[in-house]
């Protein structure tokens, strides 16, 4: 079995959190993560940072905060081109809805509102169509205590159920503000079991789903726009000679047979 590569897609750093991306990445690397995304809140002055060192990558990200759906769409447009991961600070009915209806959004973070789980069948359908991942921020499970945690767990359970039914991508994050808020990948998977996520779902929620987000936002060199890609560069690269021959010979053969 190939070892999965794990990613934590919602980590905060100075000035939004307590540590620098470098400090947090030391521990994340020790825990066996392949990368983390630094997603500071957009209402706090900080520039998205990203770097790569010894097989560990810190991705540029942002957590967009707004109270107004139309302003939110504007902010998404403003930040989209500069970041690898675009997260929406959810938790409000209108914002949740605006987030799942925008194709440029990668993750809807902590959608749970004070009253309910923040997700229903309509939002789930949009999220599925627009490929917006629903976040399960595990910090509220391991840091919370008492009634609040009880509510969080039941909302998470409900969201897993809805996401499963409508095939919405799920993502597990730590939402860490300090390196003490990070948890190792297998601990995250164990925590996800508390609200009914199956092991394989949890593994993909912390490995393939975040990897897919990164791949989607870092298109290859020939990319023009969604669905349109220039493939000349690929044809010219390795083991392409056969393809070229085939392409050339096909019309000729057709001509002969006619």
């Amino acid at each position, binding site marked *: 079995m190939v070892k999965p590569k794990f990613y934590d897609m919602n980590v905060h750093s100075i000035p939004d959190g307590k540590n620098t991306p470098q400090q947090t990445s030391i521990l994340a690397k020790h825990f066996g993560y392949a990368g983390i995304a630094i997603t500071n809140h957009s209402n706090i002055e900080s520039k998205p940072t990203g770097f790569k060192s010894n097989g560990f990558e810190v991705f540029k990200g942002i957590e967009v905060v707004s109270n107004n759906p139309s302003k939110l769409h504007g902010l998404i447009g403003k930040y989209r081109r500069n970041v690898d991961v675009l997260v929406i600070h959810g938790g409000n009915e209108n914002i949740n809805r605006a987030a799942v209806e925008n194709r440029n959004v990668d993750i809807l973070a902590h959608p749970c509102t004070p009253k309910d789980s923040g997700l229903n069948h309509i939002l789930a359908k949009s999220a599925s169509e627009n490929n917006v991942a629903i976040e399960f921020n595990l910090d509220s499970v391991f840091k919370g205590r008492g009634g609040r945690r009880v509510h969080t767990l039941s909302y998470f359970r409900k969201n897993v159920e809805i996401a499963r039914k409508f095939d919405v991508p799920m993502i597990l994050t730590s939402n860490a503000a300090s390196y*003490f808020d990070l*948890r190792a990948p297998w601990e995250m998977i164990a925590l996800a*079991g508390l609200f009914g996520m199956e092991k394989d779902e949890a593994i993909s929620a912390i490995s393939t789903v975040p990897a897919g987000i990164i791949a989607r936002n870092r298109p290859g060199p020939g990319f023009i726009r969604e669905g349109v890609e220039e493939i000349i560069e690929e044809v010219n690269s390795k083991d392409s000679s056969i393809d070229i021959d085939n392409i050339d010979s096909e019309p000729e053969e057709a001509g002969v047979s006619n």
Partner: protein
Amino acid sequence: MKILPPTLRDKKRYLAFELICEHEVTREELLREMFSCVGSLIGDVGSSECGIRLLTFEDSKGIIRCAHKKTGLTRAAVTTITHISGKRVLMHILGISGTIAGATEKYLEGIEVFTNEGIE
């Protein structure tokens, strides 16, 4: 009393862990916090089913014992430890084994506990 024959004994798993902490933590402090956190997450009934026991704890690393079908729940429960005596801590499970010797040899012997010196 005669001890139970092997087939009737409870099967167990041993979790090797390291504790990443701001300041050194004593065994008693860890025990108190561990049972309070586990109790708050899974309650008395869940704790009794898990059968969590702190076996050894030295130099910020040690072994926890639990029921063999409850490793996931035990893992989740012990990761909810966030503070001990007002200082930040973080438990990292290094591996799970069926015997104490296995856990010690594979995961604890000769392993340098992660220190935050590189970070601070």
